[in-house]
């Protein structure tokens, strides 16, 4: 199989080489880091904006509405208008709030989701760092976001916020387990924790197909628990609009609210891209064994498009969840995790290990 036209490895290495030849190693690293940071920042903002727009349109179509359609073509500039509005909005100082933590909280949430993006491979050779323990890193970093939520709820000096934050804390602690275990199922199959190797391992078949039923179960569990981890409906208990008005970010306004709002969508994007990478082959095109003509056509679609397509499909599924289901209650959220997802997951890992051991996978 030939991905050479879409291989970014040599391109990246060329840039790397250019900087190291012309600058001292220290400055070369600094410049590279700045460039990567800026590129990610722009990508982050663009994806967040697009997802907010997409969510509005998706929920509108599910609800027999048109959605935003006033500002710009198909209402596409609505989110830019909203963004400007949020920027210009007054940031209300809260009496008796813990000022430092209150201001810090949105940034922690942003940083957590921003860091997780570093390890994700967007295409061959197109990732910031290719860590040996990529999956572990992503799990570790993405669960840091809850600290921001807890801080926001605690420092707001608002009872609704506090309840929302505590719910979020209880929820993340338990769902982190399911996320980890369902990823471990695939790690057993792939034998590596490195994202690039995981993707390469799916060249002749995505893991969701390779791993028989256990992989499918792991995928469903990952989807459910990552929805919970991204604080999305039906697990949006921390926000719980109809119960806690806006939960942990009740007291935030203006740009800080915008950060929380953006983060929700970025978290969704990140968990979807992890799911796409680990289960659906990342940037690998869809191949059917034996149909060479079909496979060649699939190869011509750039891997970046494959990656984004899979990710946005999963994002859409998560939006579909949110706009269909009623919210769970906190005890039911925990029951779901500890009574259903966790035992199934453990048994699932056992099955997967057995399959790998017997070499029954493709």
């Amino acid at each position, binding site marked *: 199989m030939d991905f050479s036209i879409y291989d970014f490895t040599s391109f990246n290495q060329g840039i790397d080489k250019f900087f190291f030849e012309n600058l001292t190693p220290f400055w070369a690293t600094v410049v590279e880091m700045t460039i990567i940071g800026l590129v990610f920042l722009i990508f982050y903002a663009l994806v967040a904006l697009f997802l907010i727009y997409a969510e509005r349109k*998706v929920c509108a*179509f*599910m*609800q*027999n*509405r*048109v959605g935003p*359609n006033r500002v710009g073509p198909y209402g596409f500039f609505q989110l830019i208008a909203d963004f400007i509005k949020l920027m210009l909005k007054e940031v209300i100082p809260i009496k008796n709030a813990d000022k430092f933590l209150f201001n810090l909280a949105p940034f922690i949430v942003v940083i957590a989701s921003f860091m997780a993006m570093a390890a994700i491979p967007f295409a061959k050779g197109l990732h910031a760092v290719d860590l040996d323990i990529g999956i572990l890193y992503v799990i570790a970093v993405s669960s840091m976001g809850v600290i921001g939520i807890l801080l926001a709820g605690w420092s707001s000096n608002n009872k609704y916020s506090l309840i929302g934050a505590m719910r979020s804390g209880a929820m993340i602690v338990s769902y982190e387990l399911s996320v980890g275990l369902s990823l471990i199922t695939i790690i057993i199959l792939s034998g590596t924790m490195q994202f690039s190797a995981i993707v390469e391992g799916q060249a002749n078949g995505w893991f969701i197909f390779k791993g028989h039923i256990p992989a499918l179960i792991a995928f469903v569990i990952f989807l459910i628990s990552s929805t919970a981890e991204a604080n999305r409906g039906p697990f949006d208990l921390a926000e719980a609009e109809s119960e806690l008005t806006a939960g942990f970010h009740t007291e935030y306004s203006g740009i800080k609210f915008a950060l929380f709002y953006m983060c929700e969508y970025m978290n969704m994007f990140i968990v979807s891209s992890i799911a796409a990478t680990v289960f659906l082959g990342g940037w690998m095109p869809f191949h059917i064994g034996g149909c060479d003509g079909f496979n060649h056509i699939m190869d011509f679609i750039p891997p970046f498009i494959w990656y984004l397509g899979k990710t946005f499909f999963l994002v859409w599924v998560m939006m*579909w*969840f949110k*706009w*269909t*289901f009623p919210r769970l209650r906190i005890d039911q959220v925990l029951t779901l995790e500890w009574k*259903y997802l966790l035992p199934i997951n453990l048994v699932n890992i056992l099955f997967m290990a057995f399959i790998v051991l017997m070499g029954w996978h493709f």
Partner: protein
Amino acid sequence: MNSFFKYFTDIFNGVKSLLKGMSVTGRYFFSPGSIVTQQYPENRKTLKMFDRFKGEVIMPHNEKNQHHCTGCGICANNCPNGSIEIVQDKIETPDGKKERIIDKHIYHLSMCTFCGLCIKSCPSNALSWGQEFEHAVFDRSKLTKILNKPGSSIIKDITE
């Protein structure tokens, strides 16, 4: 064993019910024909209110700028909110009698609750509903309207 079995049927039924719900929203997502939103300012030209729509109280005038209102004040008495005021005028008819006619039929749209008692109680059917519904104004005083047009007179040929 029974509870073990129940554990799995619970999961199965739960997932089934969730998929059922998702099928509803999914179906609407893929059927843009089911969108019910009206594009209001764009469809202004084609938008027609129902004939009986209670937009505001109007006093129909004929082409000779004449109306039916005698200025009796029954509508003002019947109005629960005092949104109708009648200002009467005294004129002298050609045969020397003094007669009261209407000078101004003042209608406060801002106080009107559209109960229809004025229209129902009017003995000469001088009032009716108008279909205008875009009442937004920048100044509250603009909502006070004088229903009889300037220079209008009463239709004399009431046969009763």
